[in-house]
């Protein structure tokens, strides 16, 4: 890995870390200057993150989807991009205190887990446009799921503050529990068709690469599990009106399965072929 890549990568990590702290400060102080700085730092981080990926693509000569480092950096990019988009759309900067740290955790995961950042040639069966489409869509689907997860956490905090009639600044500053619940749902609604598309493009790729669109490979199975959990979320919400606690709990379980599909399958499960 070249020095330039290191520089850009750690700039992004530092920015996301700084932004997480700034957003937290903003959440607890309500100082709008802090909030604006947090947004600025996040934007700089996203630019550095984009440049990291761009440079990697240039050096490796293929989309940055060949190892855990590249995936994590791409997924963090997706989360932060969606976050900034939502911040501009909904104007609730406090969400940053819950969502930007998820992006930080992902991008920093390679260092935390000691994963190599080296450029690696793509295995023959990974050289496919379907796989590129698969990962690009996954970045947005998982980004939206990460967001709904952050909102579900916020929901639990807000709800307990309201129940205890807290008069603290945190309670005042967090959006209403109802809005958090509804937004969390909106993000899942956005992510679910994308997630379906992730599974379908993955199946098309597998059909070309292995001649089987579905082989119950652990990665495939776990993405199916994730899909079933979110499907349960949507149905319970629509037909039984599951909102609030139950919905937030399912959103958190759903994101846990996302993370497991991503990290756990490669690192914990006794599978055969785990393509990062």
């Amino acid at each position: 890995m070249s020095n330039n890549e290191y520089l850009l990568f750690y700039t992004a990590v530092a920015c996301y870390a700084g932004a997480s702290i700034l957003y937290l400060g903003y959440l607890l102080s309500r100082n709008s200057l802090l909030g604006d700085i947090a947004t600025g730092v996040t934007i700089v981080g996203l630019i550095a993150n984009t440049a990291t990926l761009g440079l990697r693509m240039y050096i490796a000569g293929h989309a940055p989807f060949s190892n855990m480092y590249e995936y994590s950096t791409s997924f963090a990019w997706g989360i932060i991009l969606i976050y900034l988009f939502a911040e501009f759309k909904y104007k609730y900067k406090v969400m940053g205190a819950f969502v930007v740290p998820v992006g930080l955790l992902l991008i920093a995961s390679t260092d935390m887990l000691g994963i190599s950042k080296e450029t690696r040639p793509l295995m023959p069966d990974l050289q496919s446009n379907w796989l590129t489409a698969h990962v690009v869509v996954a970045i947005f689907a998982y980004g939206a799921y990460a967001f709904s997860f952050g909102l579900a956490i916020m929901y639990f905090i807000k709800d307990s503050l309201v129940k205890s009639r807290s008069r603290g600044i945190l309670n005042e500053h967090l959006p209403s529990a109802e809005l958090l619940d509804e937004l969390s749902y909106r993000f899942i609604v956005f992510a679910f068709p994308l997630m379906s598309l992730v599974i379908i493009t993955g199946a098309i790729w597998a059909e070309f690469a292995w001649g089987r669109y579905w082989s119950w490979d652990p990665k495939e199975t776990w993405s199916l599990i994730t899909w079933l959990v979110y499907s349960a979320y949507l149905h319970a919400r629509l037909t039984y009106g599951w909102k609030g606690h139950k919905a937030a709990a399912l959103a958190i379980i759903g994101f846990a399965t996302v993370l497991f599909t991503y990290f756990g399958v490669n690192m914990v499960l006794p599978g055969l072929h785990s393509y990062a």
Partner: protein
Amino acid sequence: MTREKDDLELDIDLEENTGKDIVAEVWKFFSSMKLGLFLLLIISVASIAGTLMKPDPQTGELPYNLYGSYWYRGLLGLLCLNLLVCSLNRWKLITKAMGEPRIVVSENFLKKLKNYTLVKDKTDASTLEEVLKESLAAKGYRVFIEEKNDKTIIAADKGRFGVLGSFITHISFVIITLGTIYGNIGGFETYFNAAQGQVVDIISLPDVQNFSPEDNFQIRIDKAWQEYGANGQVSDYFSELTVMQNGQEVKSKKIEVNDPLVHNGVKFYQSSMGPVVEATMKYTDKEGKETSQVIAEGGAVNIPGTDLTVVFSRFNPDYDPNNPMQPRSNQPNNPAVLYELHRGQVMVDRNFTILEKDVKFEQGSISFGNLQQGYFTGLSVRKDPGVPIVWLGCGIMILGMLISLFWQHRKIWAIVTESKGLTTIEMGGITEKNKLGLENDFNAVVDSLKA
């Protein structure tokens, strides 16, 4: 009042069927969302358990084929049945929802809605009605108007086809499942390794079923090789294949990973590759004319101008004439080739020969030499007639989801009354999904009244 209840209860009334007879009971059981959620949960848990099994380190086989088991498939089948019954049950409601919205509503009904507003204004009623109509139409709503007694009721809705979305999605799931089943019972899956020059007969491969002899053909491996990237790692595997039918070459294709050959519904995937010994076989005919061909261990070639086929059946790097099948070592001290000579189906000769030594027979002589390393190719062979159905189902699923998740049915009503120069407007709105979207529409319409 029941229509109003429908509107309030999001048109979802799953336990509607409360017949006493057994058929109705079964139908009710299968239309229950409780069963649906239970199945989603159970299937998730079972699938998780499946991924925790350790594959055998040698064969890669799992100790138990969970996903192929009858009970797992049964659960998936139950899920299909469940959502099918659910969807059929809801068909009436869906068609009702796609018709005209309920127009005549009461003030009491509007007051119960989450989006409710009371506006009083001195402007006369008909002007305000126009404003309402226009701002609703501008937001893409269909507008219906009914005068009742001294009131004007305006009912508006948009996105009514959104209710079709979940129906389409559910059907797509059934289509995908059927496609998978059809693929399982109407196809086959097998694998072979073959060296350059070898001809493989499809119908005689193991595990080939559902394949009619008229469709049968042979695959000739013309070439197999691999390419390397800048750092010396393999970057891709290639095989050049020719389809032969009734002794005719039908077509040829260079396949690589991610790019299979398809013929008569059978697909050939580049799956693996391994090293194999290749030799140059020289044939000298009775006139002394020489021709050379490359032949790999396990491969076969035709001797030109004759009805003879030479098979390179085994390579022995260190040949011991006293124990020909057992190499003395792995070192190429005395390399020899076990060849076979076939005339049609009959084997006429089989023997070891050391390199560069002529083997004579009535049409001339052959010799083997110039050893080098080549590759055998490993191909997965699969016939799955269900694949197009599965892709169709996938496409329909995405379509259905886009419709149901982004095309939400929203309804807004306004009751306008005028008395003593004061116009009163009571407005209410309802949606099953995207409350924020409805709220935006609703507020925009309310604002247009105040402007």
